[in-house]
């Protein structure tokens, strides 16, 4: 197991380095001259030859004329020491720009994931057990609809119904501006603002996951060992929860882990629609502002999380399914 884990981690590092090369070359393709933009402000004050000199000095200082390999090495070194560059727009190190939105995103998504998992897993199990019942059919239709309609349409509908028509929830934002109150009141205020986004995010994820859990569970329930368990006279609850669910877990685990990882991704559409200051919104903003160092940092974060997710799901197979453990 330890050997396997080490192997996977090594592989992860290997893939990460390849991805970093790809990303580095991709971002180097973007037209633009950082040295030119650095000295541009001096154009008016300096004489042409002085300006040219300053420009060349800037180029040399930034190392723009070095071969690509050298530049990559320098960039990777900075990356390893936690230097992700400078945000062009905010004029502070990228790590500082990313921290707050990342916190917000994690805060929002933890709730979304808890609500989502808390709903989908029981729902999936229940519909698989009560297969072809009226309830199951209703859920099936609803999941197909939920699966087919993009999140932003749900968001538009909910804003129209709950914010514009009924006025129950605010249209956008995370807090009431200039809110003053105790910590608990502030939390309540935040949750009141987050109610609609959370609803939208949960619905968006609900449909796909419920279908998946139901299919895995139905597969497991059709196995012979379930018949055996029932024939033995085990309680239905035991049959379903420990015999069937344990076996249905394997395919579901990948999905659940993927979903946990999405805590960090930020939800582009929801954050944009409700104007939440999360990672997704930061990404859109930075792309629009052409603040590529920030974009690059976010993208690297995505890659790391994706690789970690792969690792965790590989390892968790062993935990969930003893057969996998034996094989490795």
């Amino acid at each position, binding site marked *: 197991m330890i050997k396997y884990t080490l192997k996977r981690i090594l592989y992860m590092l290997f893939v990460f380095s390849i991805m970093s090369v790809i990303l580095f070359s991709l971002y180097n393709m973007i037209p633009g001259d950082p040295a030119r933009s650095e000295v541009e402000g001096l154009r008016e004050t300096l004489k042409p030859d002085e300006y040219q000199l300053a420009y060349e000095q800037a180029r040399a200082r930034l190392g723009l004329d070095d071969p690509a390999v050298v530049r990559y090495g320098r960039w990777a070194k900075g990356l390893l020491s936690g230097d992700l560059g400078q945000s062009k727009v905010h004029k502070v190190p990228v790590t500082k720009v990313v921290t707050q939105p990342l916190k917000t995103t994690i805060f929002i998504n933890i709730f979304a994931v808890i609500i989502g998992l808390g709903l989908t897993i029981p729902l999936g199990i229940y519909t698989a057990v009560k297969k072809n019942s009226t309830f199951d059919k209703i859920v099936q239709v609803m999941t*197909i*609809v939920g699966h087919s*309609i*993009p999140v932003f*349409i749900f968001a538009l509908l909910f804003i129209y119904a709950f914010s514009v028509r009924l006025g129950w929830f605010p249209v956008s934002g995370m807090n009431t501006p200039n809110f003053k109150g105790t910590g608990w009141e502030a939390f309540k205020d935040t949750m009141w603002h987050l109610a609609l986004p959370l609803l939208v995010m949960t619905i968006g994820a609900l449909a796909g996951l419920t279908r998946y859990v139901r299919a895995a569970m139905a597969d497991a329930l059709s196995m012979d060992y379930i018949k055996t368990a029932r024939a033995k006279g085990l309680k239905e609850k035991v049959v379903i929860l420990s015999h069937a669910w344990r076996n249905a877990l394997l395919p579901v685990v990948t999905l659940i882990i993927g979903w946990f990882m999405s805590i960090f991704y930020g939800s*582009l559409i929801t954050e944009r629609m409700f104007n939440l200051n999360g990672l997704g919104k930061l990404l859109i903003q930075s792309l629009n502002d052409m603040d590529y160092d920030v974009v690059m940092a976010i993208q690297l974060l995505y890659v790391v999380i994706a690789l970690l997710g792969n690792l965790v799901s590989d390892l968790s197979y062993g935990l969930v399914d003893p057969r996998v453990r034996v094989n490795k």
Partner: protein
Amino acid sequence: MTEKQIYDKKKDNKNKKSFITLLFSNLFGNKEQLSLMEEEQVQSPWRTILKTFKSNKVAMTGLIVFLLIFLTVMVGPLIKPIDLSFSETSQIHIAPGMDLMKFPESLNGKVSDIAVGPSFSVAASTDGKFHIWGKTRVSSVIDVKNLPRDESNNLINMGNVVRVATGFDHIVVLNDQGQVYSWGSNRQQQSNVPIEVRQLNNIKDVYAGYQCSLVLTEDGKSIYFGNQMNNDYYPYHQYQGQLQKLAVTADAMLGLTFDGNVVYLGTQNNSYSTIPENMGNVVDIAATASTVAALNDEGKVFIWGNVSQKGEGNIAETSEKITAIYGGRYHYTALTEKGNVVAWGSNVYKQSTVPESVINANIADIYTGYYQNYAVTEDGELLTWGLKGYLFGTDDLGRDIFTRLLNGGRMSMTIGAVAVIISVFIGVVVGALSGFLGGKVDIVLQRVSEVVAALPFLPFAMILSALIGNSLSSTQRIVLIMVILGLLSWTGLQRLVRAQVLSVREQEYVIAARSVGVKRMSIIFRHILPNVISIILVSATLSFATSMLTESSLSYLGFGVQAPHPTWGNMLFGANNSIVIQNYWWRWVYASIVLGVCVICINLVGDGLRDAIDPKSQER
């Protein structure tokens, strides 16, 4: 026994074979020839799939609805082609409905004056009543249907209305006492009747334009109120006291003097002020948004101003003498001495195509404005032609949402289809190679696929589109979106194909093919692949739906296909503020519905196909 009974019996005998015949035929094989298929109930797998699919009502409904949508968006753009550069400020945010020319019945036969606005029309009837119809909500807060009220919120009694005029978003009326009332948008004071006008009692006519109003007195004076900056009008112009008629373009005022000359009432030197010489004795003037027309007493029409490609300058040929001209937004209509109508200029909404009913009738008077025309026959009947309205409303640039939905649907579906073709191609090739070859190739390809699958789809597609798409033209960008969607979505299919290939790899027919020396590539693509095609088909259908969703999400965020090219996703771009959501619901409702229905249908078809191909999955 009657003859008929005998006949019936014979017929019976023919149908009901006797026991002996049946016995013999069964013994000696002389039975009715059934085809092999019928007898053995053998069907090719594809026929079974087709039959199962056909019996699935939900999936069939999905298929039919999808095909209907598909046909509509493929044929529709041919009938209603899109003009990508189109924008029309006067037609912004018009609610859905075809009632722009649905005048009240009580007006028929009693028309005294009609004025046409961008989306609404107003009229005065001969009994002095005021009428208004069309889409009267000109902004999220102003509805010109709300007649003016005094301080204590009671409706002002306007008396007997004789003249009406409509501007961009306000209305001016004149009653028989010579009093002027105005309401609607008042941002530039255009509906704030100044004291000097209220004190007058010899007002002859009222005019209204873009953010401005004008009154004309009996003694030939003009008084202007409204936006002073946009419109070139000089209050102390030298023709005060000589004017008998005014014409208002989108930004300038011209007048016709009592002695038959056209004069410019502003200070600038522009294309309106360069009035043609030698026009003779002018008897009528009219204006569109950007041109001016004059008619002299010989029936000759002169056009000047910013004459554009829209065709205001192409005066219609007629053998009859023209006696009056009228200007719309970008077209002119003219009345001849024999009561016939000719029209020329922009014909986007058929506003310059005179209908049969008008040609056949004897027309006494015409009222033209913006995109509508009203003609009064000599019997007093009111006939109309031009823009009826918009089925699904218009958006923030005045573009018809229905046309954009048709064209956007074609774009969305094309992008989805091409993306699926790309992803199916990659998925099949990678999956088949990886499954059949195994070993190192398999490991490398699977690791690559793992990484691609683990990356968050939407942000990555967005980043790629922003990084690469920066320097591309809009058409290249559309191709880029297709490629990105295809490149990021092949992993699921790849895994399916690989699993299938692995399961058939060791089957006898593959071993047989290998043993007779068929090349490996040939085995993969000609022997194995046809056996897994059904899986590919299901996956392609479902990923077509996903591609359309992703494209719409990308475009919605502004990183997909960009305006002016419409797609169902980017039509919703900019709809996410509460003003649009609440007031201009048609901007998001229709696109959402059609996108949702289409994707639901594709998913239903995909699910039905999967059930039909793999009957085991139905048990789930």
